[in-house]
């Protein structure tokens, strides 16, 4: 399986807004549920160092975790295990639920994203944005080339 989220390291910095937006707007979760789910996600994804890792870290003066993460980043294209995050997101949003789909009335959701292969900000939306004026600052990621984005991928 090709992991959609390659640079998971940067997930820690930027993914939260997207997850919260989708939880509130698409899943229509109450704010309290979003809080518990986000804590749960963080605990599962960001593994805590075990005893051996702590000892190694002490011996190397704190360098071990950095070297370990760098090596993992090179091997997995990410500092953390993307498979576990994918699994959590699929459980939360459904593995097949598409971003653009018929939905009950509610707020629209838009997500800013980046594509490593394209030097421009991407915008993922739950609504049809094809008729809006094209902006030079971003491009809209619809069902491009027949590829339908799923909610968990966003």
């Amino acid at each position: 399986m090709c992991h959609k989220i390659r640079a998971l390291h940067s997930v820690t910095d930027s993914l939260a807004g997207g997850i919260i937006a989708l939880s509130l707007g698409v899943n229509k979760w109450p704010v309290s549920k979003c809080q518990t789910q986000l804590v749960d996600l963080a605990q599962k994804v960001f593994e805590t160092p075990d005893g051996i890792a702590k000892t190694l870290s002490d011996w190397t003066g704190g360098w071990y975790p950095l070297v370990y993460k760098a090596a993992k980043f090179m091997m997995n294209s990410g500092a953390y295990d993307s498979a576990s995050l994918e699994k959590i997101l699929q459980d939360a949003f459904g593995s097949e639920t598409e971003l653009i789909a018929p939905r009950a009335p509610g707020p629209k959701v838009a997500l800013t994203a980046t594509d490593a292969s394209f030097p421009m900000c991407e915008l993922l939306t739950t609504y049809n944005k094809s008729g809006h004026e094209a902006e030079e600052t971003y491009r809209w990621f619809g069902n491009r080339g027949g590829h339908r984005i799923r909610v968990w991928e966003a």
Partner: protein
Amino acid sequence: MTGIQTSLFKSVATIVVAGNPLDDKYIGELEKPLENQNVTIVCRNPEDLKPREDGEICKMIQADHLLSDAVCFVGSDLSEVVDPYLDWISACGGDFAIEKNKPFAYACVTHSYTNRQQARDDFLYACLENQKASNMSRSELVDDAFQDLEILGPSKFCELEATLRRAANIGRLQREAVGKLWSPAEFRSIRAHLTRRTSRETLYPFSIASAITEEWTCFDGGNSFRRVLFEGSGLKSPTNDCILLTASYLSHHAQQSRHWTSKSDEIRRVANKKTHFAESHFDCRYKEAIELMIKSTFPAMTEKDVDVNVSKLRKSFRSLTANASADSSFSKHVARIKSHEISVRGKDFGYSCATCLVNQWDSLLPCVQHGMCHACLQQCKDYCYNTCTVSMRKCHICDREFHEWKAQLIPSSARGSILALDGGGVRGLIQLEILSCIEDEIGLGLPLMRFFDLIVGTSIGVSQNPSSP
């Protein structure tokens, strides 16, 4: 108090409320588009009429002037509406007023006049006395910008709405009698004038002006028409079904801007044996694009065959447009799609509204293949829960039935509430805590999301190339 509503309309009335005879809530009620589809009412503030410091006149007011059937100046008494009336003339009179498209002016006041002619004379006299009309003659006061001026004195302001609608419909009928076929060049010039932004003025993207002056190929370059109606048949020329359906879609589009069509032209045609108004309309607005579309879809077709097909389409368009009224045209159009569904079933509508093929869809139907724009949903609804929530039980393209599918219609004048959520990993908990506090502060026990129209969040996004597996 400044807002604008668009829908499929027959008449447009602009009102300018001087003084403070009405509260804002009542103005908001007047602007509601969904319950009153016959007349679109636009509310303007007297401040909008005054020239700006840089000498620019509000372009929105000029657009209102060109595209409204009636302009109503509302006040407690006639002296209150003198200033906005003169400001309007100075903004839109003279060269800017197109002879055959001047709106009718109405001064609506709470005071009821038994002798309206006398009230009109008094009003014009008060205008002449005003320094803003220093160089104007009595006839110029009316003729410069308007077809005519009438004083309306509803005994109660609760009758204002009915008065406005009546005024707009009368204005519409009277303007129909003089009629005018706008050319695409004229529309382009109006749009160019309106969209030339100044530093202080931002135009609404879906204003009345843009709805009325919209060119047919403005969205998607007509690709949706080609994709749905012409392509994929494997034939060397469009079938009769395709021709009729295309004519139906075009006539549906033509109904949206009343300036293009006029029933009275049929009367003139019979009398003068000149070209039918609808045919001129077709030539003016659609012919060139349709020719290009047919040529590019069927490259092997000879010029003569292209002309034959365009001529068939023109004839169908004429018969559909001549017999259509704004009330029944939509239902007839939907019935035609149903009766020719074999031609469109299974076709890729993309992001276009399946009913009009011009707008992009706003709500995707549960059949997932077809979506509808708000304007078409508004007319096609099976049930209306309230002014903004409608439901449909069936897709009229693929006939798939739904259970309790609802859509939210958002008036174009509604100001959106946007919730922006930043990234920050576990720091996202902080913004959730803030949202929780806001929810408690509101104290209505409703989910916070009920108060937002759009939620924007920072995501890592999809870094996979869509073409790869």
